């Protein structure tokens, strides 16, 4: 239907160029009256089409009509009059009711805007720096939502019952300032950590089993996170990695599709213009370069440089991880695990590990960018992806070695080891925050001063989106790992994200300029969401799952004291509901389906078969697209077309 409207409006415009009478102009073949008749037919068809749709779809369709406002109003009035003449119910009443209902819904939708935090700030950022920088802030807001949700459910389901029915836990020491950094001391036996909870069954009308509550709250939160991440990842993938058939060279689409209309700042627009020129020049030179094939010796040289750079990067990552492990298991440091609560120096020495980890996270990416300068890539996008991969390997190997340390070394050395792990995560997060502040100050503010006053050639620092997003992902992984060991840890993460949002925004306006290579921002966004899911969330989930499934919980503190593994609480619960017949089915499902391996084999087999079918369908569709594409070209060649240079074809003696 819309296609006919496009054709009709273009035909009407073409008609106005030519004289009113006569078909003497060859291909048009229709007189003015006939065109008007056709327009009228199309309009009636459109109106009847619209009348048959539901009210909401109808108004959506009217709003999206690609015609000037006056014509749209005419169509709307005709649709309304046709609708009026059709309805049996007194029209005034029915129409008014439906209209006010629609207005109410629209009002609700706009009122919802006010509940979205930072709505105006985000628009301002998008207007001044463009959409790729905006994507960083949107990512931050998304992470904030995860943490806020976790905070609310943990607080409601675990902390409040514990506080209300708490046994008398008196703090061993008073509040000294060091707690904010180390998390021990005053905070030690509080509900901030795992050790502050006990697993009793609270005596109330339906008994509230704290063990089950702890287990299920955390499990439910992690499962919901997983589902939400998978959903976002698949939606993003579907939107941004559309089937790329046909010529794929990525240069020219920039001209027509990449101008950022939402930027209204004059400086930013000038900046975008310069960028576009640079990118167009680069894509032109790429095209020229493709034609020069590199000879063999050059290729070997490039390859060996790449291999060398990779070896260096991986070596650095492995070295740092080993260093952290040895630091953690250092006997002098390990002695501080079971120190008396009043020993300040021993407590302060626990800060050494987080400081070292944060320094590594700050310095090694800079080393990586220096290393990547020795390589040369044909494609600037490949460079960005490779640097992202290397940084991810570094951060995940650090986190991996820390997890190994916490699950392997610590349970045998400390009495209440889950609280200790919670405190370690707390310290890591605090120092990550402190170093982020240092990074903003030194990295961006000072570099800006140096770049503009002292060494003019450096220029204003660019806002490095990839590095900032990877920092956010690292902090979020820590938060996810720490939720089991410290249920109120999201408080810190929420505060941290809030403060970082405002600081980054201020720093951006004062110190930085938007990144130069901002093409394909949508694809990089998908990569970031995928990274948040695959090493980050899956890693945290596996660590928590391993703790729950196989590790013996500490016997003096925590809700699972006395059990073999925390998972045994589920066994005892299902055993307890086996008896009464109305809950027997839960036990039956648990025992025979969830605990049997055959079920999982069958499910995996079915999923594999479905995946294979879907893949075959995709292949078939690709072939169909190619055939249709060929058909378009053939069609165009065969039908007669209006030649704009028709005057040149007239015989000269006319």
């Amino acid at each position, binding site marked *: 239907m819309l296609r006919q409207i496009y054709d009709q409006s273009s035909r009407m415009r073409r008609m106005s160029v030519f004289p009113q009478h006569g078909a003497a102009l060859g291909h048009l073949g229709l007189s003015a009256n006939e065109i008007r008749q056709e327009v009228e037919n199309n309009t009636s068809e459109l109106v009847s089409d619209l009348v048959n749709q539901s009210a909401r779809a109808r108004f959506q369709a009217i709003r999206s009509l690609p015609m000037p406002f006056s014509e749209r109003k005419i169509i709307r009035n005709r649709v309304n009059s046709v609708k009026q003449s059709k309805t049996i119910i007194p029209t005034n009443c029915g129409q008014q009711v439906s209209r006010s209902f629609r207005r109410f819904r629209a009002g609700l939708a706009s009122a919802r805007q006010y509940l979205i935090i930072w709505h105006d700030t985000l628009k301002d950022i998008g207007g001044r720096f463009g959409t790729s920088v905006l994507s960083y802030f949107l990512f931050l807001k998304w992470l904030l939502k995860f943490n806020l949700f976790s905070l609310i459910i943990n607080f409601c389901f675990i902390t409040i019952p514990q506080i209300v029915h708490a046994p008398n836990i008196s703090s061993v020491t008073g509040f000294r300032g060091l707690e904010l950094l180390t998390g021990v001391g005053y905070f030690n036996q509080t509900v901030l950590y795992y050790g502050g909870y006990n697993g009793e069954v609270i005596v109330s009308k339906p008994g509230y089993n704290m063990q089950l509550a702890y287990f299920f709250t955390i499990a439910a939160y992690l499962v919901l996170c997983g589902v939400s991440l998978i959903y976002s990842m698949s939606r993003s993938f579907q939107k941004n990695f559309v089937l790329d058939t046909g010529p794929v060279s990525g240069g020219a689409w920039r001209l027509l599709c990449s101008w950022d209309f939402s930027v209204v700042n*004059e400086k930013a627009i000038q900046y975008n213009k310069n960028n576009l020129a640079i990118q167009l020049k680069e894509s032109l030179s790429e095209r020229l370069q493709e034609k020069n094939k590199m000879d063999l010796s050059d290729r070997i040289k490039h390859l060996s440089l790449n291999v060398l750079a990779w070896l260096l990067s991986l070596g650095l990552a492995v070295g740092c991880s080993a260093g952290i492990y040895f630091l953690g298991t250092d006997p002098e440091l390990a002695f501080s695990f079971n120190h008396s609560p009043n020993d300040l120096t021993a407590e302060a020495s626990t800060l050494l590990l987080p400081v070292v980890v944060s320094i590594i996270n700050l310095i090694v990416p800079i080393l990586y960018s220096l290393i990547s300068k020795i390589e040369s890539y044909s494609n600037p996008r490949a460079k960005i992806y490779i640097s992202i991969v290397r940084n991810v390997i570094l951060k995940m190997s650090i986190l991996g070695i820390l997890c190994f340390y916490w699950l392997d070394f610590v349970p045998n050395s400390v009495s209440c080891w889950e609280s200790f792990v919670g405190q370690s995560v707390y310290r890591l997060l605090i120092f990550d925050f402190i170093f982020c502040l240092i990074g903003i100050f030194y990295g961006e503010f000072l570099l800006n001063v140096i770049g503009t006053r002292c060494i003019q050639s450096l220029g204003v620092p660019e806002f490095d989106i990839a590095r900032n997003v990877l920092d956010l992902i690292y902090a979020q992984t820590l938060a996810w790992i720490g939720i089991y060991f410290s249920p109120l840890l999201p408080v810190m993460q929420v505060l941290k994200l809030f403060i970082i949002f405002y600081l980054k925004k201020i720093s951006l306006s004062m110190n930085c300029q938007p990144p130069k290579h901002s093409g394909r921002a949508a694809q990089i966004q998908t990569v970031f969401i995928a990274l948040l899911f695959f090493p980050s969330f899956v890693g945290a989930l596996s660590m928590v799952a391993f703790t729950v499934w196989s590790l013996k919980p500490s016997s003096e503190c925590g809700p699972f004291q006395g059990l073999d593994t925390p998972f045994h609480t589920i066994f005892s619960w299902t055993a307890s509901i086996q008896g009464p017949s109305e809950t027997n089915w839960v036990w039956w499902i648990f025992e025979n389906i969830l605990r049997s391996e055959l079920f999982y084999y069958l499910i995996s087999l079915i999923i594999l078969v479905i995946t294979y079918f879907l893949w075959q369908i995709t292949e078939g569709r690709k072939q169909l697209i190619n055939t249709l594409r060929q058909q378009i070209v053939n069609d165009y060649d065969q039908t007669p077309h209006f030649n704009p240079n028709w005057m040149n074809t007239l015989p000269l003696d006319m």
Partner: protein
Amino acid sequence: MPCLTAAFCASISYLKYLLAFGCSREPVCHGAAGMGNKQTIFTSQQLDAYQDCTYFTRKEILRLFHRYRDLAPQLVPLDYTNQPDVRLPYELIGSMPELKDNPFRQRIAEVFSEDGEGNMTLDDFLDMFSVLSEMAPRDLKAYYAFKIYDFNNDDFICKSDLEKTLNKLTRNELTEDEVRMVCEKVIDEADLDNDGRLSLEDFQHMIVRAPDFLRLHNTYCPDM
């Protein structure tokens, strides 16, 4: 707890709205939808028509009207009930902060104005911001983007249109040769039916492969 937050936010926004308008304006209908017809600028049928044909709510339409009027208070009457024929010249439209630095402001005004010269009535003004807002769907934006880039209004983006687009986006950075090569490359890549110029279908096909398009073609409405 969510209800309290909602009530709190609603009251803050109401205060913000009142403060934004100040005392010197006419009493305008404020608040959520359906709170009474205290405004005298439009008849209720006119407002309904605007709400049905654009993506704006009643409050946004009134705000946009005041923005329109602020461009030339002596030309625009406060009473639109008898549909006065008022056209603001292109120079005033092009001086709005949302458009004044946009390299395509003249084409945008020409595409959305009735007379094709950039002189806009209130209807054209509302239409323009409605299409450029975040709520417009991709096909509609693609259609108008195509018209914006089609400088000679022949429903095809030919090489000369591309060259003019390129010159608006980059002034002196590319040489003439480079300009020509870029335009050839665009037509090479995007032209499906091999007629040497881009039709609307070719353009839409290209948009499908550029997922950023929808996000990039938004101009945020004034004061919203």
